């Protein structure tokens, strides 16, 4: 990332995405505009099916818009080919999902090592970084466990650590507490908040819970394919 500070960190320009439904196409994002500042935590609110996850996937470069552009730190990712987008994502973006999506055949530590290995970290340096992150998510004693040996809350903490382990500039979280009980959900949100701020990352969090959204610096609401409302968050 170039580290330019003045302009918006993430910018959506005229973004359109439609899905095929039988013979006709249904627009999900319709000429959407929006901006996120560097280091800002933004919650994206909206009803189910309104396009929140689609916007998140587009921002992460794992989906392509029909038209429009996405700039991340001044770089237009929608103009990149698949290979360049993969390399950009590998270096700059961390993902967290509702259903954890850990690699079931790798241990907790190996799940964290994976993004580092993909980014060409040396094993020794990678292991040191993993230890730091595991300590930060309070799972140092579970480094050798496989995902199916962990509780849901533990799995999501590993997922948070994995999303942040390589020091991404942008973290994208899709309903990260949607599959957790209240206590575990709160723990994960606090952890995410702390690590994002410590790492000086920008966070875009998709949720349908106003309580979760209220922790962000700012709340964007997605209705009818457009960002219709902008609120300042309370406590995040």
């Amino acid at each position: 990332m170039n580290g330019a500070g003045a302009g918006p960190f993430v910018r959506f320009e005229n973004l359109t995405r439609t899905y095929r439904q039988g013979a006709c196409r249904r627009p999900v994002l319709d000429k959407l505009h929006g901006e996120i500042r560097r280091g800002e935590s933004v919650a994206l609110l909206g009803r189910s099916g309104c396009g929140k996850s689609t916007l998140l996937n587009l921002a992460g470069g794992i989906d392509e818009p029909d038209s429009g552009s996405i700039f991340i730190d001044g770089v237009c990712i929608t103009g990149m080919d698949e290979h360049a987008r993969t390399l950009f994502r590998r270096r700059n973006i961390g993902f967290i999902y509702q259903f954890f999506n850990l690699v079931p055949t790798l241990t907790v530590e190996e799940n964290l090592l994976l993004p580092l290995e993909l980014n060409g970290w040396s094993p020794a340096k990678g292991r040191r970084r993993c230890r730091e992150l595991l300590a930060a998510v309070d799972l140092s004693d579970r480094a050798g466990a496989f995902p199916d040996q962990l509780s849901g809350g533990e799995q999501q903490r590993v997922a948070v650590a994995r999303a942040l382990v390589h020091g991404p500039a942008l973290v994208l979280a899709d309903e990260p507490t949607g599959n957790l009980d209240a206590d575990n959900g709160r723990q994960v949100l606090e952890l995410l908040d702390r690590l994002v701020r410590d790492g000086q990352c920008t966070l875009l969090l998709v949720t349908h819970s106003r309580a979760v959204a209220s922790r962000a610096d700012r709340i964007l609401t997605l209705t009818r394919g457009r960002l219709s409302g902008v609120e300042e968050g309370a406590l995040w």
Partner: protein
Amino acid sequence: MKTLLWRASLRYLGRHPWQTGLSMLGIALGVAVVVAVELANESARRAFDLSMQAVTGRASHQIIGGPAGLEESLYARLRRQGAAPLSAPVVSGHVTHGDYSLRLLGIDPFAERRFRNFLGYAPDGQGEGLLRQLLTRPGAVLMSRTLASRLGLRVGGSLELLVSGRKRQAVLAGVLHPPPQKAAAMTDLLVADIATAQELLGRLGRLSRIDLILPEGDRAAAGAVEALLPAGARLTPAAARARAMQEMTRAFAVNLSAMSLLALLVGMFLIYNTMSFSVLQRRELLGTLRVLGAGRRDILALVLGEGLLIGAAGTALGLLLGVLLAQELVQLVTRTINDLYFTLGVSGLFPTPAGLARGALLGVGGTLLAVLAPASEAACSPPRAVLDRSRIEGRAGRLIPSLAGAGAGCILVALLLLLPGRSLVLGFVALFGLILGFSLLTPAAVALASRLAAPLLGSLLGVFGRMAVRGVRASLSRTGVAIAALSIALSATVGVGVMVGSFRLSVQQWLEATLRADIYVSPVTPSNTGNEASLDPALIAAIRSVPGIAGISQGRPANVQSGEGITHLYAIRMARGSYAGVELLEGRPGTVWPLFDREQAVLVSEPYAYRHGLHAGDSLTLDTDRGRREFRVAGVFRDYGADHGVVNMRMSLYRQYWDDDSVYSLGLYLEPGVDADTMVEQLYALAGDRQALRIRSNRTLRESSMETFDRTFAITNVLRLLVIAVAFVGILSALMALQLEKARELAVLRATGFTPGQIWGLVTTQTGFMGLLAGLLAIPLGLMLAMLLIHVINWRAFGWSMDVILPGGVLAEALLLALAAALLAGLYPAWRMARTPPALALRQE
């Protein structure tokens, strides 16, 4: 590849031991079949080379004559004139000792050293003694110590030989100690002085051939030899003769190889199926890896690496199994060659690094080829699509018309490929094109069948029936491939089964029509050596005078030279009843028989006509003892006796052109009311000790001919069973994977209130439906394959035409097999789901 990705992949394989193991087994069986056939073919080829080498030695050329061989004086004339300073006379023939068929090679020990030098293998210091024994002791023969120990003989001991049914006494004068590479070729060889061999074989004054070493490329030397040759004798390069012999078995070898490739093709389909499953099962994981930043190349390398690993392990196991299987197959191949072509004494397995390497390359290469599609599918899909299951099925659904179009195109191209020419390889390309085209049509057929069957099964089984069928339609990306793989494997068994069944029935009908005589008489000889044997003329005269015999036909097989190599000639004196037994395919009886009986005309068998492009009215050139002569083709007749074809000539015409008045077989037509079995006993008593005869009634000969046919196709049946085994393993693995993948869906049903029994019913209904569908789809493809095998492959390989006859058992067998594999495949997932608490299954997912 990244270490962790590789580790994750390895652990995935380790966590699915059934799936991984069955994939490996599928590949292993496919490779084993190919390797075994390759090794068996190669071993037979090598055995032939060794045998030829042993008897040809370093000869560059051979002088050969007609069926009766050469005058001994020719050799003396050649030496006297100095035309061939390096030459050696040879007398060779087949003899039997007990149950063993042996080759007797008569040589001139003095002329021999530059050619074969058998005496060089004498134990230290015994060479001179053995030479003396060979020259002076009546009936003296030498053999390798391996053969002596196999026959249980000691030096100095006598051995009784049966030559053309006549008993002869020989003496084991000494044993030879050939080096290991020569020993294999001498496991059926008796070496004698030329005079002894002539006496034992009853060919006094005659030579089988004269071996020569001529300077390479020296046309003048060859010309000088040819100038001295009498009519009927011919100078030929030694290698050309060996090639001509080996060419006879080419179609047989190509057919076996194609059959084994079919097993590998089925194996490849199953590998493709398994790897597709493996990719689909991990779509979320692969999507996650892509989201984390794994590139397309990483994913491609991951899936290809897995394929390579499974392929390499399966191939290694396949090579091992292949060598074991080849030990059995080589016996079957050798036996078939002995039955159909020529006597091959050596039957050992000669595994060569090249043969094994080819098998390994096919196994690993085939696996990679099969994995390429799922690997690129996984690598090329955008990360979002990899995560999205419905998108995969949606795309599979949208692909159906294109796939069906491509399939129809493939079938059309395959059919167009069949139109021109006689190329056997093109025939096989068309066959494989047909299979590919059909497999591409399968998803459309499955979608249609599911739509049609849903209401039917719904009315029969209620919600279970509808769910089962809709599940097949909803998972078309996997069920389509699994059903295609199963139906292709089954169609191969149907195709080959119908072909063999049709062939068998055709041969049976042909035998019934052709074998008109009541009793057949011939001397006891090793198979395919009838041209060396003859009936005692005094015995023939005695048989003629036996009361109760109304007519006698006489036959004499002979190998003669023609422009294109060796022609198998059958000289025949037909009895009145014989004519009706010949089914003419070209030419009308009214014109054919007068020509055959009175003119310089012959009848050619269907395979001979096909191979040489002959039709009734054409002419055929043969080298006779009177020189090269043309014979008119009076007609073409049906004959399943020999795939290299045969030329029938009336006995009087044969004797006019060849100095050979021997008779090999008799067909006896009995007077009405004479019992054939009684006559057989009477004839045996008549022959007594004069000559060992094979006297068979019409029924016995037909039965023994069918036994030979069944022996010939034993190897095809073995291969067919192996294809079935490969298919069975693959289907088991595919359907099992499909059901295990549905663990979550089934757990939800369990949580909803389905009992374990109901889950079992649902799973088996679904796998049963898929099995039935595969079985039904296999029938039309199998019948098309059968038509292609019969009308194209068989015709191009052997020149045999026959009708397609539908044996009901083969079709029922395919359906039953499909259902059994499918139901069996459902057992384990049903059992596992019934035992696993739903919550655990949901959590595991």
